[in-house]
Structures are given as C-alpha cells and as structure tokens.
C-alpha cells in the first residue's frame, strides 16, 4: 500500500474505534466518571480531611493525580481488549486480515483508539476534580508525556490480552485480578513512604507505582520514585509490548487458524 493508502486505512481504523466508544458512551465514558466522582466525594471530601496532609498536600490534592491515572489505565486497557476481542468473537477481524492493511497500521490504529478513550476519560475526570480541588501543573511536558505513554502501554497490554482471550471471561480476568490490585497498591491512595521498609521494596516492583508517581510529580512536583527511571521503564515496556503485539498479529494461530 502506498503511504496515502496506509494513512486512509489508519484513519479508518481510528475513526471506527472512536465511533465505537462514543456510540456506547453510557458504557464507556459515563461509568468511570461517576465512579471517580464518588472517590472524590468519599476519599477527598468526607474521609480526606480526617486523614490530614500527605507528602505536604491535602489528601484530595494528593489523591486526584492517582485517580486520574487510574481511570486512564483502566479505560485504555479495557477499550482495546473489549474492542479487539469483540472483532475476534464476531469474526469481523477477518475484514482486516483479508485487506492489504499492514499489521503495524492495524495495531497502531487500535492503540490510538485505546489512547483516545483513556485520554477522554482522563480529561472528564480531571474536569470533575476541579469541583473538589484546584489543580496545579508543575511540569506540563512530564504530565502530558507520562499520561500519553501510560495510555499507549495499557492499550498494548489490552491488545495482547484480546489476542490470547478465548472467552469474555478471559478479558475480565486480567483487569480484575491483576490490573485493579496493582493500581490500588500502586500509590494511588497513599505514599509508599508510609509503608514499612520491606513493603516499600515490594511496592517498587509494581510498574503502576512509577506511572502514578511520575504523573503526580508532573502535577504536584512530588514523587516517591525516580522520574527518569520511570520514563525509561515505561518507554522500554511500550517498545517490548508493541513488538510482541506485532509478532502476534502476524503469527498468532488464534487469529489465523
């Protein structure tokens, strides 16, 4: 395919993906907004003042970056895993496989769809947070870069989950039993400096800790971890998962047998 044709195919996939999650906004955009708003009310307004300051900020200020990041992670992941598994389940993935679209365009199209939903929900949550606290942005570039890279990373992870999934159960196992615990234990609600030394060490094996703390550093200017190391790790994982996803798209027998 020529560059122009590839551009058209890529735009087609992205438009289809964005149209999908906006068409079913009651399932994709509204629930996370309500859930996170409840977090703001309960942890920020009701319980937060009793907790007091954390890392030098009020609890609502501390928890907002974590909750925004949590919604980005969950939504970018679930968009790609449900969309791509849906195309497998209905066999409409064959529309793409019989077409001349290169695999990297297919993958990038789905990832951009996941990033779009992750960022859309992140933006909605950010706007909601303004009803509860004033947001400051200490490092704009770091804030934008980490949220974008995180959305890319979890879109890729969702894609891999979708390729391997054989049933709808398989696409909910990872978010329920892996993603949610890692997110909750990834410093969304607390600073790991509050933990005993042993558990601080254990927490540092959780990749989500690095993304949440880097985003918090971008907004508040405080972090439990080294931001440069966090970027290196996220970019490294993105490259690794993108390469593996491309391999799966070309060779996975679950797609082409």
């Amino acid at each position, binding site marked *: 395919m020529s560059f122009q044709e*590839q551009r*058209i195919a890529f735009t*087609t996939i992205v438009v289809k993906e964005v149209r999908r999650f906006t068409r079913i906004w009651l399932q994709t955009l509204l629930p996370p907004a309500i859930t996170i708003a409840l977090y703001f009310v309960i942890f920020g307004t009701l319980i937060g003042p009793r907790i007091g300051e954390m890392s030098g900020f009020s609890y609502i200020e501390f928890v907002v970056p974590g909750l925004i990041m949590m919604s980005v992670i969950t939504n970018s992941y679930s968009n790609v895993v449900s969309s791509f598994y849906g195309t497998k389940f209905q*066999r*409409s993935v*064959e*529309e793409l496989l019989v*077409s001349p679209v*290169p695999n990297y365009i297919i993958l990038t199209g789905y990832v951009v769809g996941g990033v779009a939903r992750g960022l859309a929900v992140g933006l909605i949550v950010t706007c909601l947070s303004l009803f509860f606290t004033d947001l400051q942005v200490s490092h704009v570039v770091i804030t934008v870069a980490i949220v974008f890279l995180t959305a890319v990373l979890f879109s890729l992870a969702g894609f891999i989950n979708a390729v391997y999934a054989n049933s709808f159960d398989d696409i909910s196992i990872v978010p329920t039993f892996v993603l949610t615990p890692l997110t909750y234990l990834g410093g969304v609600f607390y600073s790991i400096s509050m933990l005993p030394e042993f558990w601080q060490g254990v927490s540092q094996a959780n990749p989500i800790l690095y993304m949440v703390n880097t985003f918090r550093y971008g907004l508040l200017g405080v972090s439990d971890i080294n931001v440069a190391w966090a970027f290196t790790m996220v970019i490294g994982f993105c490259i690794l998962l993108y390469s593996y996803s491309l391999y799966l798209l070309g060779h996975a027998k679950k797609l082409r047998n």
Partner: protein
Amino acid sequence: MTTAALSIRNLHKQYDNGFKALKGVDLEVQPGDFFALLGPNGAGKSTTISVICSLVQKTSGDVRIFDIDIDQNFSLAKREIGVVPQEFNFNQFEKVFDIVRTQAGYFGLPASLAEERTEKYLKQLGLWDKRDQASRMLSGGMKRRLMIARALVHEPKLLILDEPTAGVDIELRRSMWQFLKEINARGTTIILTTHYLEEAESLCRNVAIIDRGKIVQNTSTRELLRKLSREVFIFDTKEEIDDLPSIAGYSGQLIDSHSFEVEVEKNQSLNEIFTTLTEQNIHVVSMRNKANRLEELFVSMVESHGNESVGEKGKS
C-alpha cells in the same frame, strides 16, 4: 500466455491437532472464469479459500494471485481478491453503510470514492434502503448480500464466494446468480464453493472437485457432464397408463398413473424412446432429469475416490 487469476501448486495444510486438511492441492483458474470448487463437508474447500486470503497459514506450497506470490507480496495480492465467507463475519452492531464504507477504507480508497462505491454496491444488491440499519436487523439473505457488497467495494479482479447461497430462498438465490453472472460478464473472475450442484452447473464454466484434501477432478463443466455414463429421465404422459411402456433395450419403472422413468445409457438415443412411445400412442407432455446431473457425477466421483483411499489404506 495469459497469467492465471489463481495458481495453486502442491498446497499442504496441517492443523495443530495433526489433521491434514490439504494434501497437495494443485489448481489453476484462468482470468474471467466462473469456477466452482466442489466437495463434501470437510473436503478442504474452506481451508483452500482461507489460505488464499490469508485467514489460515499454509504449511507448504505456492499460491499466486495474478502471478503475485502471496509469500512475496501478500499485500499486493490481497488487493486483487474479494472474499465472501461462509459465516457472517461483520460487526452485528454496525450500520450496513458503515460496514461497507469501512472496508473501502481498509483498502485505502479515498473518502469520496469509498462512499460512491458503497452507495453503488448497496444499491446493486438491494440494500440501499437498509443502509442506516444495524446489520443484526437484516434477514439472512440480506446479510449475505451485504457480505457480497463488502467484498466488491474495492472492485477486486478475483471474487471468491464460499457457499454464497446457503440458506437463501430460491427467488433470492436466482437473483444472486443473475448478479454474479453480470459481475463475471464485466470481467471479474469468480470462484465459488457450493453444495447446490445445480448452482455450479448453471453458473460455472469450469469445475474442480476436492475430496479429503486432494483435487480429484478438474475440468470444464461440459466435459465433466460428458463423463456421465447414464442418466435417468422422467416422462409425464397425457394419457393414464397402467404399466411401464415396453421400450426395447431400456429399463425403467412406473412412478404413477401419469409418469414413468427410463434409464438412458450414454450410447443410447432419446429418439428411440419417443418413436416407441408414439407407436404405442402415448403422448409425452413433459420430460426432465430425475436428479441433477452434476450431483450424480459428484456422488459417484467422491464415492470412487473414497473407495480408492480405503483401498490404499488397506495396502499399507
């Protein structure tokens, strides 16, 4: 020498469970042909088609589409193919228009051309009025036509249809045949698999029969029918008849008081039958084949291939 629309050489496919679906398929389809790939369930028809359009990875062998080797440039080869699969494989929640329009986008058609072609083929297939409906709301026949519109939107030179009229009522089947004949007349090479042998007989110029992963016959439909050594004709009479009319050299049987059947060997003539009946003052009002001719041949070929396979097994 013209380039074949499809050329398959020594194609093998073994699935992970060890099942050998294709055992050295050789096949050539010329440009402009209307070609039927026939075979019983599990013979390898759908696997062959899936390999051609990259839904299944072959184990070994060569496949060329208009001389483009799929191992060398599958992307280029895919642009020449439109495929209508056996099972519905579109998003049931998407609108009819969007499904066809999106497929045009996958083939890199600019927006205006994509929309123009989508309208053209939805209209040709009688789906334009349904363009804003979710595809799940369509009837079975409409869903099949939707898949044909989707396969044609990039105007491929080779159209492959895997049992396109399965589950479609007779009237709609006839209108689809007419549409496919028109597409073929405009120069599109068509390959179809079907269980309706009447379909292959009336549409296709050339036929291949595949059984147990091997091509057992590959010739023109006319040549194939010529191999039929015996046909059974049913005669309907004007007069009531009590017994089977006596026709020397022909066997048959009485069906009811107004019809009987006669077996006619390849070297015999229907004129003799009519002469004898006229002498007996029996008037024939209509005559037809007892069974589809291709069907008889198909069954006999598949059965004989089956017996050979069993024989081969017995020797080993």
